[in-house]
């Protein structure tokens, strides 16, 4: 279960506060996955008491609201990432970036599908640059338009800032340097980039997930209800 409580002394009234939280959640807590199971209890609440003073934010139209919404979104993303860092049995922190989609929703659905694929997650645990499993998950994402195999590219973005490792370019497999791939996959942090088209769509979504290890099964095999 995910629970979260956020407090601020900014003077934000209830309506704009709900709007800011709802917006922030989409790109933060609703963009993480550890094991693909949605709990019965997930809740994130925010309280704003205005104790620091200043002009109240009473509407969603003001520049102050936009700034607050941005602050809250970035803050929520940082909190959500901590949850992924603590995924049961996880050894990797994985960012999935889906670009060039027709809509944010499409990009988010593809990223979410990759993030919950057990075979992608076990490949990551096994340090296997298995782009085939990533592509497979991309292809079965539901209600997504514009996934064209001949236009799809997949690459790994190393956490050390070095050049991306291209695995698939416009549907054609690259000659992968296995030694470099293994080195990239040794790191705790990794980014997978999936480009859905060649400039036909401009929307992007980011999702955060972790790998799937023996330890996850051990932990959850112990549970009794």
């Amino acid at each position, binding site marked *: 279960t995910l*629970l979260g409580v956020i407090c601020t002394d900014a003077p934000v009234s209830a309506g704009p*506060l709900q709007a800011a*939280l709802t917006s922030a959640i989409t790109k933060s807590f609703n963009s993480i996955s550890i094991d693909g199971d949605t*709990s*019965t*209890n997930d809740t994130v609440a925010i309280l704003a008491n205005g104790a620091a003073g200043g*002009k109240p934010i009473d509407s969603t139209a003001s520049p*102050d609201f936009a700034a607050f919404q941005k602050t809250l979104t970035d803050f929520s993303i940082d909190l959500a990432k901590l949850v992924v860092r603590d995924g049961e049995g996880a050894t990797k922190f994985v960012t999935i970036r889906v670009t060039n989609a027709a809509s944010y929703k499409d990009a988010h659905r593809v990223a979410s599908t990759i993030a*919950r694929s057990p075979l992608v997650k076990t490949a990551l645990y096994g340090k296997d640059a298995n782009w085939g499993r990533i592509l497979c998950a991309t292809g079965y994402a539901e209600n997504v338009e514009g996934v064209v195999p001949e236009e799809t590219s997949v690459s790994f973005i190393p956490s050390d800032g070095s050049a991306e490792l291209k695995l698939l370019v416009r549907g054609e497999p690259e000659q992968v340097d296995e030694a470099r791939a293994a080195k990239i996959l040794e790191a705790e942090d990794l980014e997978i980039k999936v480009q859905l088209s060649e400039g036909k769509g401009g929307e992007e979504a980011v999702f955060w997930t972790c790998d799937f290890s023996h330890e996850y099964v051990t932990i959850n095999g112990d*549970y009794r209800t």
Partner: protein
Amino acid sequence: SQTRSYAAPGDGTIPAAKKKYIPSTGTYPLGFKAGSAHVGVKASNTRFDDLALIASDAPCAGAAVFTTNKFQAAPVTVSRDLLKSRKGEGIRSVIINSGCANAVTGKGGIEDAKLMGRETDQAFVKDSNGEDDGQSRSIVMSTGVIGQRLPIQKIVSKIPTAYYNLGETHEHWLGTAKAICTTDTFPKLLSKTFTLPGSQEEYHIAGMTKGAGMIHPNMA
């Protein structure tokens, strides 16, 4: 019951690799306090705080998003109704227990969640001799095993302790972040300051979260 195979966050066995994610200081929002208490929601928990309270000194604005799972736990239903009936205004606190999710517990579970909120409200009323409009002001959350009733009398008996333990230091916030953990290996707490273009003031935001498994949120 669910057995914890991971070390509890408070027991000093936080994995070395995770310690870097735990802040040693923080800048916390004015007029908020956090505190915790030991209930022993799970009988096996004889040491660690498992009741958390985050409170505003004065009634404030509140908002929340909730799971879209169709089997929504009692505290989800109760807290959503609370925010709806109050239009997000006049909220005083968030009370959270770990160890039992109060999920799929029927009407009894709803009553337990309401009582948890009501008793938290009473702590504020008693302390300040304040007005009691009879309406709930506390958001309720629970996390832990599904399908079991809360040991509600044990919980409500410790709400005054959590209230008494409220404070505004980093240790109070961190202790409270630990109290909401279940199989988490470390408490998750962040804080920062920010400004807004139309104000001179410096604002603060702080947040705690928990979760390690059964995580694929889809909240609205």
